[in-house]
């Protein structure tokens, strides 16, 4: 039990479904971090000018070098049937691979328009794979906004990787960690698992040819809370999920590591020895922020599906008060360990009705509002302090060594407001 927990763990969390206007990015946005993670992969969105504009806007206008993503923009000629769309796609891919010969893995990423016109990207991927093999493997998934929100794009991408993963052994002594983590975080976790005596492999790997194997003996740990389809695909390959909280904050990280340690029969004393230094540093780094965040009332707008673990972290480790925890989609099984640690009476909203949410937020006047980029400045202008949630995806926040950084992301907006005199 954690001595810092302000309230007892409770099951009386109110989960309220909501439908209406949403204000969340679509799954294409996750390409922004996925293409940094898988270093020899290219993401080709098959979509409209809107898709291209979205990615470049969400990526903070532009990334310097020529990025490993692009959009094949469907135009009038394609839609009118004047051009054969498959031929056009083959032409675009050929030009792309000529230009970027270092690419080993190409994702054809479906979009709203490609889904609506029922362009069969799985067949296109198969056809192109045969043509480009063995140098380039071609996979497809959908990042469309009619099927995915924001982080679900990563889920769809990883799920597309699963069927092609090498077959694992019947008895698997390795742990599979699933979900894109910043390289530095991945390396920290790999070291911790190694000290525990567990060999850990990571999905996605940094290079296409080094993707981990999976099989009937595989036990896996989700590093991100939005991997519904990936988990399902892994289960279909026979892998088993280890139930755990997510590695956000000191407690979350310990709980996450412990789930693996217990499953792999690691001696509890050894677990304590291995985790003690990191845990100590995490609490040390968190202490100054706890002073700033304790008692602060926090409102989460739905965005990344990280909201529930983040709320748990803020409530338990930072002693913040949760006004409302909105999330675009709530996977109750994957988040079971998180939900049960939320303070009693926490209101979790599954889904979104933007204007109703704004009404509740304005009425509650929270000390800190966690929201998407479209809402942040207008709410600041209304006198509310905000934290833009997309930074929580682009910044390394998992694990012991990043616990302080995570707290700082929430404390900085409050700090800014406190400093400014004009």
């Amino acid at each position, binding site marked *: 039990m954690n001595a810092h927990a302000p309230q007892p763990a409770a099951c009386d969390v109110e989960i309220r479904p909501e439908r209406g206007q949403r204000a969340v990015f679509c799954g294409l946005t996750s390409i922004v971090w996925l293409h940094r993670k898988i270093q020899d992969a290219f993401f080709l969105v098959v979509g409209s*000018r*809107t898709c291209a*504009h*979205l990615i*470049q*806007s969400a990526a903070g206008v532009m990334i*310097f070098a020529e990025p490993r993503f692009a959009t094949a923009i469907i*135009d009038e000629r394609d839609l009118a049937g004047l051009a054969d769309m498959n031929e056009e796609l083959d032409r675009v891919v050929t030009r792309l691979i000529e230009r970027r010969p270092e690419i080993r893995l190409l994702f054809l990423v479906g979009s709203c328009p490609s889904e609506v016109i029922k362009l069969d990207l799985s067949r296109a991927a198969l056809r192109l794979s045969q043509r480009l093999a063995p140098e380039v493997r071609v996979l497809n998934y959908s990042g469309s906004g009619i099927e995915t929100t924001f982080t679900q794009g990563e889920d769809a991408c990883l799920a597309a990787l699963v069927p092609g993963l090498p077959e694992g052994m019947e008895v698997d002594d390795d742990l599979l960690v699933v979900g894109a983590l910043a390289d530095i975080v991945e390396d920290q976790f790999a070291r911790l698992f190694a000290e525990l005596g567990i060999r850990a492999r990571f999905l996605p790997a940094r290079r296409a040819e080094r993707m981990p194997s999976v099989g009937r003996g595989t036990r896996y740990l989700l590093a991100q809370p939005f991997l519904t389809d990936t988990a399902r695909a892994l289960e279909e390959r026979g892998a088993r999920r280890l139930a755990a909280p997510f590695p956000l904050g000191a407690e979350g990280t310990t709980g996450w590591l412990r789930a693996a340690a217990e499953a792999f029969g690691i001696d509890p004393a050894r677990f304590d020895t291995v985790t003690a230094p990191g845990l100590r540093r995490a609490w040390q780094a968190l202490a100054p922020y706890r002073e700033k965040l304790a008692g602060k009332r926090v409102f989460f707008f739905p965005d990344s599906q990280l909201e529930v673990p983040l709320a748990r972290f803020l409530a338990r480790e930072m002693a913040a008060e949760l006004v409302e925890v909105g999330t675009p989609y709530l996977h109750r099984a994957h988040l079971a360990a998180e939900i049960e640690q939320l303070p009693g009476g926490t209101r979790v909203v599954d889904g979104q009705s933007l204007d109703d949410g704004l009404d509740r937020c304005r009425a509650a006047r929270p000390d800190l509002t966690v929201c998407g980029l*479209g809402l942040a400045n207008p709410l600041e202008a209304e006198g509310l302090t905000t934290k833009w949630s997309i930074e929580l995806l682009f910044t390394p926040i998992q694990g012991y060594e990043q616990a302080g950084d995570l707290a700082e992301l929430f404390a900085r907006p409050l700090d800014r407001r406190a400093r400014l005199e004009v």
Partner: protein
Amino acid sequence: MQLTVWTYEGPPHIGAMRVATAMEGLHYVLHAPQGDTYADLLFTMIERRAKRPPVTYTTFQARDLGGDTAALFKDVVAAAYERFRPQAMIVGASCTAELIQDDPGGLAKALGLPIPVIPLELPAYQKKENWGASETFYRLVRALSGTPVERAPVDGRRRSCNLLGPTALGFRHRDDLIEIRAILDRLGIAVNVVAPSGATPADLGQLGEADFNIVLYPEIARAAAQFLEKAHGQPFVETVPIGVGATTRFVEAVATLAGVDPAPVLAGAPSRLPWYSRSVDSTYLTGKRVFVFGDATHALAIARVAAHEIGFRLVGLGTYTREFAREVRAEAALHGIEATITDDYLDVEAAIQAAAPELVLGTQMERHVAKRLGIPCAVISAPVHVQDFPARHSPQMGFEGANVLFDTLVHPLMMGLEEHLLGMFRDDPEFHDGAAPSHLGHRPSDGTHAVGRAPAASPLAPAPAPIRIEGEAAIQTASWAPDAEKELKKIPFFVRGKARANAERYARERRLPLITLETLYDAKAHFSR
């Protein structure tokens, strides 16, 4: 299908949002999936607007497609009306909703709302952002400008005009407007309505009361002005007042239409640009090679300022606004060059490399290209970045705009005296080839330009190697004889790139396999005409 890494313009419904967001009392219901809501951040983050755009998205999902997306659209329109109570609404579809063909206009009409509801048809697979802004503004003006009014006789009456074109997310629109208003005020001309920026639908109903219109941004307001000319008999001025010459012509044109005397506004030296360009320090600007790319309004205006008001030499001019390709081609022809008309930034990059400019005046895309090539750059046009909405007053239009442009265009370059010092002291450690202008902290690639090392390319002249040339011209570059190469190093670095390129071009055109000392000076003589 077009392979696109970055795009100069968003889809046409973004243009509609720029108009709606600029206005007051107007609401836009957009039939679109949730991903399209990213557009809000363009306004709230890039432009730092304090209010959300007045846009409600239906955010339909895959599960709605099997059901009734049309009913969803109607519900959303009705709810948006109830919540926001706008004076008028515009309704339309984004790219995805266009494919499901729900007819937003017809559905909204069927609701029988007590306000004007204007349907927008913005073909997303064909048109782009600026066209969308123009079409939206035109539709609004057409629907709301009302019946022609009888204007009072002009005798002795103060004349009035409308200012058309400024939108949300427009490049310097906020500050341009302040300058133009000040000029009109000094001319004694009243401003009847400014639109779209700050106008309500009711204000659009007053448009017909003005004596004439001023089109500040033809991409956005020309269509509306042409309609007003026809429907309300209002002539319009379309001279874009960017630069001293254009501002002077603008003042004269406006004064003529209003029957007032332009002299008080033009008297004296209303801009510092002419004197700054004539002062001896600016000698170093003379004939500097510049490449200009942007939307048509800004590319044309800046090309003229660069060539005629600062004395640069235009080596490239282009636009991504295909609708204005003819004008841009004609302007390019006046400078003896061929215009680059493309919306593919890789083509623009190739054109910049081929033209080997010493300064690039472009958009945020060209800023990145120039950075990669190590060429100084200033941003003169959309697409915009958060930096393009400075806290200070920073217009491009009017006489103050000309002052701002002088600074903007000259700042990335080395100051005149500094350039001479570099030539004189180029062997000194502080003045080695890699030294950046002292007023610029950054270098494209620090570390490679360590003191005492002679880099292959000077900051002002990129190595010409990666030029992509098609067909016949793509023959091998001649190699350099050692003595010629050595001689090249003695040439001041800021002209060395040009010397290298000229010698290689000279050799290529004559199919010389080797560039000797002789070739180097032959080329110098050849190109020094």
